[in-house]
């Protein structure tokens, strides 16, 4: 079966169809996501970007009446049919949401949450994980004196970076980001963009964005979705400078005015 298909891609998606009840939200998607690259998903509202992103760590499981057919492989193993648990999958494929969603806990407990649910309880070990995770997203110096303050008191940008730190605290391989900067100011947005670029050395990043400049600035590969179909994908420069499909061109140029 396609299980054994050798591929250098982190994610290999083949003939993916997704239905919400009788509504088909994704149609025959064939796509590969390269490791240690930033892949941007673009397209008009309602075209299925978030839906596609959520199939990659099975967050669609929570949607009642959602049916999926086709292959989605992570490092050559099908995430839906190979018996891989969602728990393992979601540890390997973390997610950052559009609205920053820290838990109503302290900054420390937010970052320590993932390790704790995996059975890490030694204080020294947790301390270290919290520090390295916060350092990695560049907010250790900002936060080190108030680790025991509630995360809900932080600004949106700080919360979002905390959420990224929380995600990487369990050492995922892939980080999915669904419009992570759409609720943030330009400076926070820039910080997160820089962070994403830094992070691709260690992680594979898939980011949904409505911001064409953002996709252009940070991504290596861009995929354009329209009405549930993957219209075109390729190196970001090619997509932006020399789109093959007329609809891609219209969308991109339409955005730039």
């Amino acid at each position, binding site marked *: 079966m396609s299980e054994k298909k050798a591929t250098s891609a982190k994610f290999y998606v083949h003939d993916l169809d997704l239905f919400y009840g009788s509504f088909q939200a994704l149609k025959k998607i064939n796509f590969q996501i390269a490791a240690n690259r930033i892949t941007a998903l673009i397209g008009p509202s309602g075209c299925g970007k978030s839906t596609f992103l959520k199939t990659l760590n099975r967050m669609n499981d929570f949607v009642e009446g959602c049916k999926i057919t086709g292959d989605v492989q992570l490092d050559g193993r099908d995430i839906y049919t190979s018996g891989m648990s969602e728990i393992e999958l979601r540890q390997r494929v*973390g*997610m950052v949401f559009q609205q920053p969603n820290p838990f*109503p*806990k302290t900054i420390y407990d937010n970052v320590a949450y993932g390790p*704790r649910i995996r059975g890490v309880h030694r204080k020294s070990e947790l301390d270290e994980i919290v520090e390295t995770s916060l350092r990695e997203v560049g907010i250790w110096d900002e936060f080190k004196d108030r680790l025991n303050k*509630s995360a*809900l008191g932080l600004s949106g940008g700080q919360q979002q970076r905390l959420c990224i730190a929380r995600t990487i605290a*369990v050492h995922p391989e892939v980080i999915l980001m669904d419009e992570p900067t759409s609720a943030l100011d330009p400076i926070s947005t820039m910080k997160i963009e820089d962070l994403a670029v830094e992070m691709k050395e260690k992680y594979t990043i898939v980011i949904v964005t409505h911001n064409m400049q953002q996709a252009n600035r940070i991504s290596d590969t861009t995929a354009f979705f329209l009405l549930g179909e993957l219209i075109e994908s390729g190196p970001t420069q090619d997509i932006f400078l020399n789109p093959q499909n007329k609809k891609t061109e219209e969308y991109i140029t339409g955005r730039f005015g």
Partner: protein
Amino acid sequence: MTEVKNEKKARVEVSQSLIRRARAVDNIWTVVFYLVALFFLLLLFAFAGYVIIKGFTGAKPEMFRFDRNGVGNYFFNTVYLVFLSLLISVPIGVMGGIYMAEYAKDNAFTKFLRIAIETLSSLPSIVVGLFGYLIFLVATKSQPNLLVGAICVAILSLPLMTTTTEDALRSLPPSYKLGSMGMGATLRQTIQSVLIPACVPRIITGVILAAGRGFGEAAALLYTTGSDTNIKWNPAAWVNPSLNPFNPLRRGGTLSLKIWTSFTASVGAEDVANLSSAILMIMVLSFSILAHYLEGRIKKKMGDTK
């Protein structure tokens, strides 16, 4: 040209006066709401003040003692009974609420459960008392005791604890759950480590209400705890377990039962009833204040500024 200008001016003036009118109406309503709030506050103060003052003016020093003649032991029984009942109703109620909010499928069984909970919440306490009496005392051939009373009070507050927990869970932003599950936490871990801690302030509110109800409960205890008490505070007397205050399987009247029996018994016992009422009043008030303080502290710690 000037006509147009005038008309414009007129329209501006009209809208100005409309705004002024709206502001005035707004102010009037603000005042009305303040008055209503003030009225309730005064009512509470007048009522509490009357009960407390009347209770303490008629009190004699020996009434405060923790012995056969004082109300001290009844006070202790009340606190102990409510404590025991919360020990039962809080875990079961919280678990029931978790089940209803997170696990129950939308089917006929759940609908039936919901109706059962609603019915339970409107059950007269005397009926629950009778139920406790028949099931736990007559059927098991036991003597009236605090534990059975606590079970009856727990049954009465179970619906409240269940619905409070369920509502609290349902009102949380879905992003908490998605965030936690998205990191590979199981549903149980998510509930235990994220959702329930986030609900604690609301659950505390439920506990206050349940405890308040327990403090004042009389009808459910009439047949179940016995209305008198003869506990001793000298440990030497505890060779007879029925005298040990901490033994839940002993008789033990509460303050509310004391009020009831004092009024129906001899004349002159009225002062005892009044004092009991005053103490009960103070208990309920201080418990409520304490609990709200705790709730506020926890909320502040979680960064919830609402």
